[in-house]
C-alpha cells in the first residue's frame, strides 16, 4: 500500500521516507488487515483491486508487479478470482514492516516474492499500484505530483503490456481533505499519453469516490 520513489533527488526521498513511516505506523496499529493498509474494509480494498486487474489478461501465464503491495492482499483476491491463473507475482513496498508482514502471511506460497524497495523490482507484463497516491501527508501538491510522475514513469518502464493505478476523485463543490491527494482523470491520462506513450482507459463509477487509470503499452 505504500508508495516508492523512482527518482533520486532529495525532496522525493523525503516523501518516500514520510510515507514509509506513516504506513509502518498504520500496520503496527491494525496488523495485516485492510485497516492496516489504511482501507476501510476488505471489501472496498478488493473492489479497488478488481478495477486494477482490468488491465490484465490473466487467461495466459503472466508476470505481475504489485507496487506498494502492503501485506499482499492482492494474492488473496487472485487466489479467489483466478485460482487457475499462472501468475508470476512480485510484491514490492517501501515499508520493511509491510514486507515482513507479507512474507509471514504468505510463507506457504513460496512462488510469491516480496522485496523492500521504492521501484518495481523487475520488468513484468503488468504492474499494479493501489492507493499509493492517496496519502500525501504534508507534502505540497506540486511536489507530490512530481512524486506521482516518477512512480508512473517507473511503472511504465517496468511493464511490458500495461499498468494500472487509482486516484481519489476530486468532488465538485467539496473542499479537499487535508493530507490526501485528489485529482481528475484528465490530469493523469494526459501525462500517460503524452509522456509515457500509453493508451489509457478510465474506470469510474464503481461505488467509490475515486477513479482507476488503466494504461496499456503498445496498443
Amino acid at each position, binding site marked *: 500500500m505504500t508508495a516508492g520513489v523512482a527518482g533520486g533527488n532529495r525532496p522525493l526521498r523525503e516523501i518516500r521516507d514520510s510515507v514509509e513511516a506513516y504506513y509502518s505506523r498504520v500496520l503496527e496499529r491494525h496488523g495485516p488487515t*485492510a*485497516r492496516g493498509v489504511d482501507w*476501510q*474494509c*476488505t*471489501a*472496498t480494498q*478488493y*473492489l479497488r483491486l*478488481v478495477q486494477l486487474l482490468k488491465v490484465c489478461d490473466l487467461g495466459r501465464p503472466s508476470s505481475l508487479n504489485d507496487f506498494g503491495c502492503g501485506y499482499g492482499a492482492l494474492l488473496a483476491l487472485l487466489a479467489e478470482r483466478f485460482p487457475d491463473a499462472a501468475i508470476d507475482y512480485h510484491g514490492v513496498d517501501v515499508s520493511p514492516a509491510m514486507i515482513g508482514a507479507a512474507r509471514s502471511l504468505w510463507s506457504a506460497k513460496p512462488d510469491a516474492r516480496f522485496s523492500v524497495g521504492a521501484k518495481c523490482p523487475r520488468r513484468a507484463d503488468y504492474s499494479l499500484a493501489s492507493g499509493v497516491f492517496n496519502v500525501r501527508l504534508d507534502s505540497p501538491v506540486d511536489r507530490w505530483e512530481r512524486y506521482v510522475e516518477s512512480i508512473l514513469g517507473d511503472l511504465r518502464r517496468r511493464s511490458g503490456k500495461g499498468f494500472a493505478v487509482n486516484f481519489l476523485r476530486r468532488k465538485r463543490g467539496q473542499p479537499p481533505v487535508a493530507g490526501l491527494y485528489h485529482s481528475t482523470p484528465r490530469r493523469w491520462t494526459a501525462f500517460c499519453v503524452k509522456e509515457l506513450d500509453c493508451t489509457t482507459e478510465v474506470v469510474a463509477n*464503481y*461505488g*467509490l*469516490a475515486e477513479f482507476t487509470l488503466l494504461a496499456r503499452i503498445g496498443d
Partner: protein
Amino acid sequence: MGKLMLDRYVGDIQAELNFRFSPGDPLKEMIALQREFAMFSNSHTLMSAAALLNLAPSDPAARRGWFTFLANLRRVPSDRAGVNGHNRIRSVLRTNLLSPGAKPVHFTHHSVQENRGVLVSTGAPLVFSRRQYLIISAPVT
C-alpha cells in the same frame, strides 16, 4: 445483547451500520460491493458479510459478542412466516441493494418482550428527515 457486548459498543456498531448504509456515497458504495461480491447472498452469513465490510467493533471481546449476536439471529423468527431473523435481514438487504430504487437502511432494535422477531418496514425513521428508509429492527434483551 447486554450479555454479549458492553452497552457502549451497541451504540457504536448501530451508528456504524447506519452510516455505511446512509444516503449518498455510502449507499452507492454498498450497492457496488453487493454487485461485485454478493455479500448478502445465501452463500454468505451475516457474520462473514460483517467481517468483510468491517462492520464490527474493534474490541476483540465486543467483536466476538457481535458475531454471536448475528449468528443467534438464526434462532429468532421474523415478520416473514417460516424465515428466521438472520435470513430475513440478509434477503431484504440483498433485494434492496439490487433494486433500481435502493433505499438507505436504518438499523434499530426493539425489546424482545414487544416482539420476538426481526421486523422489516419502510418509513421515515429520522424526525429531522422525510427521506424514506428501509428499517430493520432486531429484537434484543
